[in-house]
């Protein structure tokens, strides 16, 4: 092996964590961390939550202080685009033409928000939310007297709607499916969040197609729906998913299938190249299938995989995938994926905003969705990982504690 070291393409949560873990695990060769954004690695989840509401500042979002990178011998290059990967030569080429050699390459390029190819999509005030710069632009449009139209009733859209209400703005959520969260949560959750938002002044348009954004003087002023109505607004947030940013990988000949395909240690079809985070399609050993996960927890698990693989450390035990969302005073946590579930069981009372929905395959929990129910989330996550049958009647009975259910 040469002493070219590791190059990490993508300086987000996953890439930044992989760099830090390599040093924690004793990796000594050079590490070069290359990001397109002008910032050192930072946390994205607060951008739609605490940061947007003004409860967290930029400093709180950074993963490590600026001084960390030089002290740890990590060459952080921000505002730099990688143009190509050259696997045969083991080099990456920047858009400036410079080339850097690697022994191991880690791709952590994440995802890019999907844009709608409809008239008016380029008007000022038609925004997406992925980066800190996106969040700054969004926040500038929110406040008392403003109205935001959120296109897409997923987590990003709902979190932004909740934050917009906290900032005194009006919010309307436009969803093409018959219910919000259709892709990512069960109907009980959709109904719960619809009611919770509605009680706090958010309005909904479901089963609604968006056909155009309409403006005045170059700025958006309304969203045209398929039924002809115009929803007036001052700003639009488009939150309709984020496809993997796998172009540079695909052009280099790495196997991609709706994300860069990796194995259980985050290795791609080229043994010297790894990929982590939202950009990957990865094995899920608990469910014996491949899947694309979009979460910080996934990016961090794979950062641990790759840091272990490169330093020869024993791989960590498989984790149960999980994620969370904060909306108003709701702490929503979910774990697992309801693959092949044949039974849905509610524990607790949705009208009291404290409940959990369990998805079972036979007597084994596949997934849990928990609203203000940390014990159900934690106990559920544990049981999902153990693949251990439980008694559904006891699980549904709140007089039996989660500790007892899991015992």
């Amino acid at each position, binding site marked *: 092996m040469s002493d070219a070291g590791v190059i990490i393409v993508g300086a987000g949560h996953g890439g930044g964590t992989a760099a*830090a873990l390599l040093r924690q695990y004793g990796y000594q060769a050079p590490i070069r961390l290359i990001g397109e954004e002008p910032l050192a690695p930072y946390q994205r989840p*607060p951008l739609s939550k605490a940061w947007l509401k003004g409860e967290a500042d930029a400093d709180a979002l950074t993963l*490590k202080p600026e001084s960390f990178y030089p002290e740890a011998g990590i060459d952080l290059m921000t505002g730099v685009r990688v143009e190509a990967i050259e696997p045969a030569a083991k080099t990456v080429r920047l858009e400036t033409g410079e080339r850097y050699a690697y022994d191991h390459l880690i791709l952590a390029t994440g995802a890019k928000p999907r844009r709608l190819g409809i008239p008016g999509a380029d008007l000022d005030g038609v925004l997406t939310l992925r980066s800190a710069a996106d969040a700054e632009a969004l926040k500038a449009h929110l406040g008392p007297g403003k109205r935001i139209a959120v296109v897409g009733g997923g987590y990003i859209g709902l979190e932004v709607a909740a934050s917009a209400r906290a900032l005194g703005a009006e919010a309307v959520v436009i969803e093409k499916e018959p219910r919000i969260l259709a892709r990512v949560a069960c109907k009980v959750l959709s109904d719960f969040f619809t009611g919770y938002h509605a009680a706090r002044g958010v309005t909904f348009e479901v089963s609604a197609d968006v056909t155009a954004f309409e403006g005045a003087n170059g700025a958006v002023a309304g969203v045209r729906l398929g039924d002809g109505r115009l929803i007036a607004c001052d700003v639009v947030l488009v939150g309709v998913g984020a496809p993997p940013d796998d172009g540079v990988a695909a052009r280099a000949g790495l196997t991609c299938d709706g994300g860069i395909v990796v194995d259980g240690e985050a290795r791609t079809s080229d043994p010297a190249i790894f990929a982590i985070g939202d950009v990957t399609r990865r094995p899920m050993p608990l469910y014996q299938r491949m899947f694309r996960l979009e979460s*910080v927890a996934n990016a961090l698990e794979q950062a641990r995989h790759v840091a272990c693989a490169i330093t020869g450390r024993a791989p960590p035990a498989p984790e149960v995938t999980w994620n969370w969302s904060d909306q108003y005073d709701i702490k929503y946590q979910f774990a697992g994926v309801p693959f092949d579930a044949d039974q849905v069981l509610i524990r607790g009372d949705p009208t009291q905003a404290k409940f959990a929905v369990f998805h079972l395959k036979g007597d084994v929990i596949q997934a849990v969705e928990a609203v203000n129910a940390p014990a159900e989330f934690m106990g559920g996550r*544990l049981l999902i990982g153990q693949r251990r049958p439980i008694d559904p009647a006891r699980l549904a009975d709140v007089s039996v504690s989660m*500790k007892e259910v899991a015992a």
Partner: protein
Amino acid sequence: MAKITYIEHNGAEHVIDVKTGLSVMEGAVKNNIPGIDADCGGACACATCHVYVRESWLDKTGEKSAMEESMLDFAENVEPNSRLSCQIKVTDELDGLVVTMPESQH
């Protein structure tokens, strides 16, 4: 500013000056101290910043919220002095605090 001693499971000690207002978790993560993962970044959503607070400091680190208590209930190797370090705010009062990390956060 408070001087906090973080002790890894293997006994390695790290003494760090942590700014008032940060959490004990942030003091570790921002200084790349191994042993605290903090996957959720301090949202009390994941229980991967579990620490043991040295007994003499338990009064000063305050009470656990019901949320934190429930999260800790299912963490591994929980002891009476277990805390989620993202829920302990650093104050001048905590100058000298000592916390120990569990073997694993996952």
